[in-house]
């Protein structure tokens, strides 16, 4: 075990992959010598050479088109999009191409070797274009997997699993936690199964569900609730697609209440899918309507970020509403 922040943990997962497969390539804007604007790929070009770790021209569409081709060839393609906000120029390559390679070819071809890493989310005073959480756009597209880690240990294990998974995976990294979240991480290889949520704390009165950077927020809310005598069960969804309905439903059957929280705007956010499904699965067990605490239906602002984001207080207020229903 070693103390690592999330960037080190991601770097370690990439390092293991590069050592394991002689054709694995890491590429994206500024990822070469510089190690990426957040330094997640630091030192890897020195170690594996310019042919395998390289800067691309500034074209997200090009990066994902290239990655699809490289992955179809059979090499692990580890593409970085510098900010999740800039994944949209590559949208067509991801939702029409990566996601449908296998299906449209009757499994003649696939891009299972593709992993897309990209920093997402707010909390860094980044305004509209450096704070978005675009997971729901991709969750509407069959053929992709979507994963969001909450801390360094999860980041390394989930990223390794994403890379080894035989499907294209988008790995959203909570950039606010890159350096802020530090923890014990094994130096050797390990994986955390995709598609499985984790119950990180058991409770009896209400279930709180989130992913990525929002986990910290619901844990703070749970703390407040605890002080008010409310026992919260906390679940990290970890994989958005596919998502672990069973673990969530089991918890809601037990507690009878659910609060889902994410940073993205509420309308058509992934919380909507969860609320609809859990309402069907757990209808007779629900003690109150499922609450969603999410971003507003506006672009992510700069000046009034505090007002905009789903903070611990808003989650706590939702817990109380739910308990008092």
């Amino acid at each position, binding site marked *: 075990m070693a103390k690592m922040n999330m960037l080190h943990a991601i770097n370690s997962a990439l390092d293991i992959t590069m050592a394991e497969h002689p054709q694995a390539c890491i590429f994206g804007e500024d990822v070469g010598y510089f190690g990426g604007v957040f330094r997640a790929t630091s030192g890897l070009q020195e170690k594996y050479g310019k042919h395998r770790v390289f800067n691309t*021209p500034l074209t997200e569409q090009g990066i994902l088109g290239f990655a699809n081709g490289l992955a179809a060839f059979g090499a692990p393609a580890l593409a970085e999009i510098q900010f999740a906000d800039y994944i949209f120029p590559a949208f067509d390559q991801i939702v029409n191409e990566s996601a449908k390679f296998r299906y449209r070819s009757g499994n003649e071809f696939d891009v299972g070797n593709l992993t897309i890493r990209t920093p997402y989310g707010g909390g860094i005073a980044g305004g509209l274009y450096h704070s978005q959480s675009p997971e729901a756009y991709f969750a509407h597209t069959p053929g992709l997997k979507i994963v969001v880690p909450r801390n360094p240990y999860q980041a390394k294990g989930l990223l390794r699993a994403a890379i080894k998974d035989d499907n294209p995976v988008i790995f959203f990294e909570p950039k606010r936690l890159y350096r802020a979240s530090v923890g014990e991480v094994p130096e050797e290889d390990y994986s955390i199964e995709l598609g499985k949520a984790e119950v990180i704390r058991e409770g009896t009165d209400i279930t709180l569900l989130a992913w990525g950077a929002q986990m910290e927020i619901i844990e703070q809310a749970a703390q407040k609730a605890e002080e008010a005598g409310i026992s919260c069960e906390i679940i990290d969804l970890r994989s958005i697609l596919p998502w672990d309905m069973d673990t969530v439903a089991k918890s809601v059957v037990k507690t009878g209440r659910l609060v889902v929280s994410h940073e993205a705007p509420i309308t058509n956010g992934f919380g909507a899918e969860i609320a609809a499904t859990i309402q069907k699965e757990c209808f007779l067990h629900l003690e109150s309507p499922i609450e969603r605490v999410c971003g507003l239906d506006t672009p992510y602002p700069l000046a009034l970020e505090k007002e905009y984001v789903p903070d611990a207080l808003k989650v706590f207020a939702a817990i109380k509403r739910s308990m008092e229903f």
Partner: protein
Amino acid sequence: MTNPNNISLNISHALEFIDGHALNIPTLKILSDQGDVLDGATAPDIDKETALRIYSTMRFIRLLDERMQGAQRQGRISFYMQCLGEEAAVTASAAALKEDDMIMAQYREQAAIHYRGFSLEQFMNQLFSNEKDLGKGRQMPVHYGSKELHYLTISSPLGTQIPQATGYAYGQKLKHIDKETGELTSEIDNVTICYFGEGAASEGDFHAGLNMAAVHGSPVIFYARNNGYAISTPADEQFKGDGIAARGVGYGIKTIRVDGADALAVYAATQAARKIAVENGEPVMIESIAYRLGAHSTSDDPSGYRTKDEEAEFKNSCPVNRFKQWLLKQNWLDEAQDDAEKEKIREDILAALKVAEKVQKPTLEDLVSDVYDTPIPSLQKQYDELKAHIKAYPDAYPVTAGRIK
């Protein structure tokens, strides 16, 4: 001979490939580094007033950049981006346009909006995202914009303004087209200038924008600021062949390359480009070669990817000083007065900074307005719920709580 493929074929019997560098496009340079008009070069027609306005804009932006870079380091603003090294490119090109020509910039072109009259107070209000910011505190610092000044508000996603400029310019041309014949009936009265970096020229939007402008004849000036780097990525990892200019040629667009640290060369080239655009109703491309003297932004540390020697080599090629030397030689500028004015500007900047810093943040209503022309019902409901929440916990939201009705 022409054929249906729209290419005039020049038949050859030699199996020959053309090299990517074959064009070797020349670079227009008028002023020496010491501010003398070079032998064989002709200074453009430029009156004293315009020349001094270009100079005072460059000087102001230097001082503003210096101070605000410092303010970011002190944690007073969240982010900053300097124009350092490209002041002449941006200012002199903007100066060669009509005041109501449209400007669509990438982000580093604060000199262009200042040339048009964006005031020190307006700069500060945007940088501090306070309630007087024209953009209502929604975007990061340096994302300026002003309808009055014909300067489209900056958007962070790179390259998106390039095809937009093509469309906007097409609208500008449409006013002058005869409905029957489809011919231009008069000179076009306005053009659009579109600035972007050599990095952004790799985006798909660039290729789409140039191609459509060429095919449909949009009077747009594509101004590529080739400053050597896109964050840490040097130009040789960005493109091959004869620069961005060669691509203009490839798309069938009249193209020129200029020394971007030479205000007179930039001014002359942009004036000529504008003339082509208005007379022929077609796009023009300018590639300006300069060096990004500073860091990419305040989030960047260039010492990690370029050498001290390289930086030192370019330190001397200061575009502001080069133009200043020329002005001194024209007897249009007085050195002592210039120094006094600089001191005064420094004081003004500091004073304006202190004022803007204390202006309140935008109101809660500014958070939800302008998503649509009027808030849709779901958002109106969210807004009401948020107000109620803040009223219940006013201490947690000190910026807005006291101002909620």
